[in-house]
């Protein structure tokens, strides 16, 4: 009851349980404009050669909103770049060594070292645009290939097919090993391998790993010195002690194994930020894996020995959490359009099952949940794994946070459904209990898996348009796809569906060709030896993380517009072929006219055809057919240069918006420009029977062919999550999804009125977080389009 009467704004703010120190650090993070003494903005570094490259388009190829600025970024970053002095012999080294040496120079001499007042985890300026250290002839080849890539990228994007690009981040480095043996231990391992390595290229590669594995010690050492300086000047005795303690910690880790909780978190943070510095890609999808599993033992040990109390542990963790948000400084000056990048997705995974299906929740899991709820920030993004044996206590806590905190961005992953699909793609069954999602909900293995996600993004609805116009793009009239025949001549829905399959394959192959090109460019010219040191398999295969070196390597094609496509096919099937209420010719003319002047027809298509999302067996069966067709087909492709194999996912990110204007009107009654459907969600408003029916429909897709995971968002009104009685009902809903549903679920507890208020008074609702297709964003920073979309989505509910 009390929650109903509470003023809305207080729901989005951090909890008043935060200590003054943490509150101040949190506020400091939000005060981007006044914090000119500490910003994590992009720092470009060049070799000084006139042909140097510090920015590559394919890195951002999956972000269409960036295309218009790519040239500007590329030029201005190079112009602004600081020249890193290099020894003449640098240019005699092989490419992999050059990358390692350059990285070492940057991290050891150029990354700024600053400590914020009161913070407990040091390190925050890591955002680089680093030279690719190419020779003149390499640069010429690189630029030629990159040019071809950009040309194809823009072409396919303009058709509304989708996009593709070798995207960095989006993986889980082997952090637990660093905590266990330190970078010294890693170097020893690499040295031992070096002693045995036969091929010169393997030896070069191992040398590069060793060079990179020296970097954390040096950078941490610079922090240790800084901390000692600060402690000498510090007048507050308590803080002086803290600074000294932090100096000791930084003098030790990540070089040496972490011995306690504080060391572990500091070690983790240094290791993590250096990945971002090395990849020149801050944040997106660089994930921690099963955070509570590898930190829990440190926490419990320190608590037991009395070295740590819960409150201190919490403050250290909160300090760590706040630091993760500094990735956003990257876009501080440009603002964010459409909420792109507004959730970077440094994902932490909590709970989940063990090898025997037993639950692995520990005390630290609950500490993390408390911090997530109280601190109410975007990063790191939490994902909780649920399964058959999840204890009620954890489930209740999750539901409480989802219901009450509203803000806390929360992803829920379902183990059995996730694991089934990872097994289907051929990953070893006995390792799958230890999977974890990256970014938003993209399932991978930990520490040994370079399975990119959001690598290739396909708009499934485009194929429907290509069928209707016999391979032509409706807007331009260009013959872009194969001629699958004049649909007016099709006698059965079967013929229509066959044409749809052909066009889908065409779109897929175009995008795969584009990705293959970027995959090759990255593998040839942009090795990341520091990251390779942190992904198992590279050291033994002698191949970089970008070259298929890790134990597991997949490329993911993520689909948008599943439901739009399904509903379109359902409408054609029922109204054109079965009931013959609409002629194919009339339908094509109406779509060509974007339904202008065809309102009655459009109404019929909208209202008289079945829709996916209503737990209706025959509609769901067609949905399953569509889903399985492309997700099975994609696994038959491999990227030739790296040997990485393709697999499917339903993330959709923001592409359901980006490709809306580039997709003609669809036979489900949608007009050009109206958003496509996202993830495995039904078309907005098409689901009329509530969340259980939607979850059933999603489950009926049989997502075992979607190893990378499926994004499903449901929205519930706050009244459905009030009080313990209703929260138990939500627990039941989640337990049911464990058995049948998507691999990942996000629940928005929002009412449209609140959202409308937030749109009008953004200042009052600065901290209002919403979940948008697998990622989370501050509502007021989203473009008006997405805001309206979310409001519409909420308002559809009755």
């Amino acid at each position: 009851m009390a929650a109903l009467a509470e003023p809305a704004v207080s729901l989005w703010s951090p909890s008043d349980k935060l200590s003054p120190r943490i509150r101040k650090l949190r506020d400091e993070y939000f005060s981007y404009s006044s914090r000119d003494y500490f910003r994590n903005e992009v720092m470009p570094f060049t070799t000084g050669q006139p042909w140097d490259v510090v920015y590559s388009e394919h890195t951002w190829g999956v972000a269409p909103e960036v295309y218009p600025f790519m040239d500007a970024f590329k030029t201005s970053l190079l112009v602004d770049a600081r020249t890193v002095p290099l020894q003449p012999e640098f240019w005699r080294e092989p490419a992999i060594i050059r990358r390692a040496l350059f990285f070492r120079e940057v991290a050891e001499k150029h990354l700024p070292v600053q400590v914020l007042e009161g913070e407990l985890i040091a390190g925050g300026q890591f955002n680089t645009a680093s030279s690719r250290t190419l020779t003149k002839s390499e640069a010429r080849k690189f630029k030629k290939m990159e040019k071809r890539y950009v040309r194809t990228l823009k072409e396919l994007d303009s058709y509304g097919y989708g996009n593709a690009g070798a995207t960095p981040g989006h993986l889980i480095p082997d952090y637990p090993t660093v905590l266990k043996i330190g970078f010294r231990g890693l170097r020893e391992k690499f040295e031992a391998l070096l002693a045995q390595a036969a091929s010169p290229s393997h030896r070069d590669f191992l040398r590069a790993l060793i060079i990179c594995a020296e970097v954390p010690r040096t950078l941490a050492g610079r922090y240790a010195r800084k901390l000692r300086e600060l402690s000498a000047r510090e007048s507050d005795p308590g803080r002086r002690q803290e600074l000294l303690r932090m100096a000791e910690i930084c003098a030790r880790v990540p070089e040496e194994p972490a011995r306690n909780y504080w060391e572990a978190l500091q070690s983790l943070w240094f290791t993590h930020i250096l990945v971002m510095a090395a990849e020149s890609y801050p944040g997106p999808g660089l994930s921690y894996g099963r955070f509570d599993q590898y930190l829990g033992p440190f926490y419990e040990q320190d608590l037991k020995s009395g070295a740590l109390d819960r409150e201190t542990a919490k403050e250290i963790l909160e300090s760590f959490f706040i630091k993760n948000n500094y990735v956003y400084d990257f876009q501080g000056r440009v603002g964010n359009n459409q909420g792109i990048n507004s959730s970077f997705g440094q994902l932490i995974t909590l709970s989940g099952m063990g090898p025997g299906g037993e639950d692995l929740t520990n005390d630290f899991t609950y500490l993390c949940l408390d911090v997530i709820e109280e601190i109410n920030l975007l990063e790191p993004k939490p994902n909780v794994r649920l399964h058959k044996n999840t204890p009620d206590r954890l489930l209740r806590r999750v539901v409480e946070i989802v219901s009450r905190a509203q803000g806390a961005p929360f992803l829920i992953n379902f183990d059995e459904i996730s694991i089934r699909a990872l097994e289907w793609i051929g990953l070893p069954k006995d390792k799958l209990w230890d999977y974890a999602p990256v970014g938003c909900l993209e399932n991978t293995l930990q520490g040994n898996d370079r399975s990119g996600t959001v690598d290739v993004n396909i708009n499934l609805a485009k194929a429907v348009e290509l069928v209707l116009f016999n391979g032509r793009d409706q807007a331009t009239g260009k013959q872009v796809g194969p001629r699958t025949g004049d649909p007016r001549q099709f006698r059965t829905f079967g013929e229509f569906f066959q044409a749809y399959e052909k066009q889908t394959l065409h779109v897929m192959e175009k995008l795969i060709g584009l990705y293959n090109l970027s995959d090759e460019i990255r593998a040839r010219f942009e090795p990341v030896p520091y990251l390779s040191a942190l992904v198992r398999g590279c050291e033994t295969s002698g191949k970089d993380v970008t070259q298929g070196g890790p134990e597991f390597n997949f490329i993911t094609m993520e689909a948008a517009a599943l439901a739009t496509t399904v509903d379109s096919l359902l409408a054609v099937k029922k109204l054109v072929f079965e009931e013959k209420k609409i002629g194919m010719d009339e339908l094509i003319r109406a779509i060509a006219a974007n339904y202008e002047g065809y309102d009655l027809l459009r109404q019929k298509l909208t209202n008289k055809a079945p829709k996916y999302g209503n737990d209706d067996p025959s509609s769901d069966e067609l949905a399953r057919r569509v889903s399985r067709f492309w997700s099975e087909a994609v696994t038959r492709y491999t990227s030739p240069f790296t040997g990485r194999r393709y697999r499917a996912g339903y993330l959709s990110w923001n592409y359901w918006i980006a490709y809306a204007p580039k997709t003609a009107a669809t036979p489900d009654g949608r007009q050009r420009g109206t958003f496509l459907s996202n993830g495995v969600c039904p078309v907005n408003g098409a689901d009329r029977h509530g969340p259980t029916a939607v979850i059933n429909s999603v489950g009926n897709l049989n997502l075992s062919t979607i190893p990378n995971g499926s994004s499903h968002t449901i929205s519930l009104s706050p009244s459905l999550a009030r009080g313990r009685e209703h929260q138990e009902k939500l627990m039941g809903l989640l337990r049911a999804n464990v058995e049948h549903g998507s691999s990942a679920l996000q629940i928005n507890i929002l009412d449209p009125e609140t959202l409308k208020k937030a749109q009008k008074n953004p200042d009052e609702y600065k901290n209002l977080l919403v979940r948008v297709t697998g990622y989370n964003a501050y509502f007021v920073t989203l473009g008006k389009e997405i805001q309206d979309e979310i409001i519409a989505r909420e308002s559809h509910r009755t």
Partner: protein
Amino acid sequence: MDESSATGIVFSIQKFSTEDGPGIRTTVFLKGCPLHCPWCHNPESLSPRPELVWHALRCLGDGACLKACPEKALTRAGSVLQIDRKRCIACGICVEECPAAALEILGKKMTVTEVMAEVRKDSRYYEKSGGGVTFSGGEPTLQSEFLRELLEACRAAGLHTALDTCGQCRPETLAALLPGVNLVLFDLKTLDRDALKRFTGGQLDLILDNLRLADSRGIPIWVRVPVIPGYTDSPANIEAIARLVGSDLRHVERLDLLAFSNLCLAKYEQLGMEFALKGSPLFSPEEMLALREAAERAGAKNAVVSGPMRSNGPA
């Protein structure tokens, strides 16, 4: 699984029903009611027959329905579609022809098998949440044979059942149904015999007899009081009901105080009916909590407040 082809008139099957009993439920609404409570939030449930409704906001004004109607029951006055309810036989032809889904038949003839097929789709949710199926209305006991078979089919399927009744039925009818019921949601509006008769047509003695009958069978009961401004919202009424359930009856597990809702106004307009409580304000949370305290003081063990209330948040 012995489901018959018995049919009834169902006006809605609501999934993820969270306000009609424990856990996640499906509520099956049966059409027809012997009472005529002025605050009824399901006016479409009153008539036992299927009824045509028109959704003004969706109407395109294309006139397909006028042409289609074989009974000439539809006419248009300006932008308003008028339904001659004496002529309309709710055949559904106009619904079929309307491209915009602006016409709808409320009340569908369904077999037990059809209802059960829908209900079973959410079995997983009932199982995981301790939920089940609730039969409501209207007054579901009006379709007693259909209901009895539905209850039977639920029992065969292992589903928990709740019966939401106003108690205005013959005791023999109720007695025949109770063996298939796991929980009774018993609507009790007022203990003022005359007021009850005048406003709703209900007979208090019959209703109380039925309440005692259910109680005597040992079936858990949730007594539900619609708290309606000017009708049932006096502390005296709430206290009297609380005293009754707290002392005389042994199996009342909970007393629900359901705050007046005005969300049904649009439905009245669609049906061409007058909503007597149009313009009445919602209760504030404080008012409802005060009533709950009154109920608890009078002996109700587990009084629970729900329903829409005025927001105290910033405007």
